[in-house]
């Protein structure tokens, strides 16, 4: 029983991070008009920048956490002018190709340039490896608790923004029908840039939580997370933000139980299995496209 509980805690913690990643990705897809496969790379590079601040300041979390969030926003906004000419022409496939180019550059920076390519580790002041609560073998660390609560908070905040504010309504209108949104006088370029800002903010928050739950990062982490994020988005239905939240928790739990019960390294098969299953039997995704 304790063992099951441990798997559930791990699964929900990882699932909440997948939820943040898929939400940021969906937001960029719907509102920004880009297929940003490099979004997790933006997040992992923010982890690296957070780590660099920790190194430089002797582990000052009060500086490192804002640095991670600021990097997420900054890097996300940095990609906007690159995508803009493609988005203007509505060339969504071309944005995907460009994002693959960005993944290569970012992965190279993380895998070779920073820390001479050696994987980075975060101090226990951030991860809080000591168990906060113990139920037999099941433990809940500070990092996991912060990740779960923080992700719920971030998602609730985003949904409030989307469904209760004027600018959020404009976001959804852009997602549903960009040309109708434009006729209504919604400033389309400015709204697109806001979508980069908000997904950058979510990305920065994810970077902090990834550092807390994983405690380490390496060059290939971005691409690994990109596949998970893509699996969640496709499984739920591309652009379906609320469906993505559920799919993310499903993936997190499925992986966590696979690690616990299946010998060997079968974890990554689950994400691919989700994509393949959906593509074969329900191509529009579990919850349908764009809700």
């Amino acid at each position, binding site marked *: 029983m304790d063992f099951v509980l441990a798997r559930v805690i791990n699964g929900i913690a990882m699932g909440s991070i997948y939820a943040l990643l898929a939400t940021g990705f969906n937001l960029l897809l719907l509102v920004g008009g880009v297929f940003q496969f490099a979004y997790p790379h933006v997040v992992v590079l923010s982890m690296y920048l957070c780590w660099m601040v920790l190194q430089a300041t002797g582990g000052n979390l009060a500086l490192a956490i804002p640095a991670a969030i600021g990097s997420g926003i900054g890097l996300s906004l940095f990609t906007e002018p690159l995508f803009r000419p493609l988005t203007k022409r509505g060339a969504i496939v071309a944005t995907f190709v460009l994002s693959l180019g960005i993944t290569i550059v970012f992965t190279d920076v993380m895998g070779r340039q920073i820390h001479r390519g050696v994987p980075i580790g975060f101090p226990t002041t951030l991860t809080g490896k000591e168990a906060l609560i113990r139920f037999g073998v099941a433990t809940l660390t500070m990092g996991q608790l912060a990740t779960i609560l923080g992700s719920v908070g971030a998602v609730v905040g985003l949904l409030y923004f989307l469904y209760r504010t*004027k600018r959020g*309504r*404009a976001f*959804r*209108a852009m997602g*549903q*029908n960009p*040309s*109708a*949104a*434009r*006729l*209504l*006088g*919604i*400033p*389309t370029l400015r709204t697109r840039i806001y979508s980069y800002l908000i997904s950058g903010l979510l990305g920065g928050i994810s970077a902090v939580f990834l550092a807390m739950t994983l405690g380490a990062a390496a060059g290939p982490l971005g691409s690994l997370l990109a596949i998970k994020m893509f699996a969640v988005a496709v499984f739920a239905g591309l652009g379906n933000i609320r469906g993505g939240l559920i799919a993310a928790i499903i993936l997190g739990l499925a992986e966590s139980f696979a690690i616990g019960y299946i010998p060997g390294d079968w974890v990554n098969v689950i994400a691919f299995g989700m994509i393949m299953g959906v593509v074969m039997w329900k191509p529009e995704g579990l919850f349908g496209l*764009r*809700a």
Partner: protein
Amino acid sequence: MAKNSVLKVDDISVSYGPVKALRHISLEVNQGEIVALIGANGAGKSTLLETVLGIHHVDSGTIRFMGEDITRTPTDRIVASGICLIPEGRGILSLMTVLENLQLGAYHLEADINQYLGRVSHHFPVLGERSKQMAGTLSGGEQQMLSIGRGLMSAPKLMMMDEPSLGLSPVLVAELFKIIVDLNKEGYTILLSEQNARKALACAHRGYVFEIGSIVLSGTAQELASDPRVHQAYLGG
């Protein structure tokens, strides 16, 4: 002329790549008028309305709204200055509620929009009753009412309507034109593009006839309705 010009289009040309969509179009809409644009599908009526709203690049010519040059102004600023377009096909956001669609109409307004909401439900009681419903679940006629209501939410000085009667039953078409006349009597200035020339000329003050990107005829609605060429081509002989 002592009339207050709301919209003045002067010698506008627009092209889609190599294709000339509008050639040297000039027209005027004055305060309190209903002006009808008639002509076949593809004659350039929709292109003109979209060009006024800043959607298309203008090759040459100028567009003035309330005396100000808006030829190169971005769409969101044009809408904020008081022009709304009720687009062909209605442009309803079907996965949002009726209320949210109406609120989006007033996107650029900072003031309290409740008075506008009240006015729209007064015109279209059905929109008030169904405000929480998804817009996509409304009937075709109700969606057209929503599209017009959403236009009213923007407090427009000029309402442009693109083929509002398209796809409506004869009963609803009659109701629609009654609404257009009522809105005009309340003081709204309306530029109406319609394939249903008979109905459009019956309610309009003046009209322009479009043919392959040019204006071939213009005049008061009575003049146009009694012109043999208009009669033959658009009023069924």
